[in-house]
């Protein structure tokens, strides 16, 4: 597991109040119990943690950890481990 995935998993788990191993790659945030404000809080945290700007349109599309990781790998200046 890369550092990026570890960090992201920790952020998602903390946000949704679940154990990190419950934050699976392909479950949507909604599936994990997130509502719209959870999602935006998470986006803000991800933007700051990874020093990346996520457009409004993209923020709605990256609704799983896998999609978020793929986005970060191409847009973030913090590369994978």
């Amino acid at each position: 597991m890369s550092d990026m995935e570890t960090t992201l998993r920790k952020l998602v788990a903390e946000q949704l109040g679940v154990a990190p191993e419950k934050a699976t790659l392909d479950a949507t945030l909604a599936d994990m119990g997130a509502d719209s404000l959870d999602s935006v809080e998470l986006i803000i945290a991800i933007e700051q943690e990874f020093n990346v700007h996520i457009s409004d349109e993209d923020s709605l599309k990256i609704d799983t950890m896998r999609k978020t990781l793929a986005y970060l790998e191409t847009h973030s200046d913090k590369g994978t481990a």
Partner: protein
Amino acid sequence: MKTSHRAILDLLDGDRGYLERWRRLRELTREIRTSEYQITNACNLRCKGCWFFEYDFDRRTRDVKDLSSLNAFLKRERDRGVNAALVIGGEPTLFPRRVAAFVDRMDYVTVATNGLRKFPTQGFEKVALLVALFGGIRLDDELRAIRPGGTRFTGLLSESLKNYHYDPRAFFLFAITEDGTDQIEEAVKRIGDNGNRLHFSFYSKYGGDDPLRVEDGKRLLDTALRAKQRYPDTVVSHPYYIETMITGRSHWATFGYEVCPSISVDHPDHAARLANGNPVLPRFNTWAADLETINFCCTSGHCDGCRDSQAVFSWLLMNVHRFRTNKQLLKTWIEIAESFWSQYVWVPTASGALGDEPIPNAN
């Protein structure tokens, strides 16, 4: 503090006051899931511009009069995860026992009323009442003071004000129109002097060719904003919301079907809309008076002519991600959200999730 809240605090330049307001809104919205219920097709008025009668909603279904059937339906709604009811009609205050069933089953109840009949207080202390007003004091009579047989009368707003004098449950939804621009401030002052507050909404001329057409939108907007400035304790609406309401535009899009969140999620015609990525209200349905039919949306489905206040609010609030790009936008969203929730007397103010203070009218 959660990482995300540290990030939001950073976005707010360290403003802990706004962070705390964000958190309280956060806890409030997490627990509320709303649907809309037409509990009757009957009404004691025939208002011009009322989509319900303009588009024959009164003829499409029959009222469920049997309270045991209503109770069984409400149990199913609770099982579906809905705990907040917006009760409309027709005119719900004609059937207090039906409203009482909602009070028994739901955590939060709001009634949309034309204001003509006083709704009892006992047993309904925490029922929010959204009271209609169209245009202005004199224009309201012209547009709304019409009995079902067509007989006209005067003094409808006076009657509403008398019914809800200093009643904390009542909140006026003042649908403004440029035909009544010169009547806006007078009506605002009357409502404030009566101990009530209001949001502006926009009067759609349903039945005409272009219900949302405005010749001089700037004058209407300027008048509404000036009323807000002069009567800030009465006009709860945020200036950003007022402008969106009148122009139909936010800082990122124009209001319409493709972006409106206030659609019935279980209605079969919304498959494409649900897939277009724009937010929708979770679990929201509008149920017709037969408690079986799911209507298209919170109003009539005539989206080209719609600027419903609650739908526009939902649009702004569900698109919170559009307001996260800088401190000022995020503060604006917080203030709009607070103004929205302040409509409802049932918003909890006890200590716990929401703190000890009522959510303020921040702007």
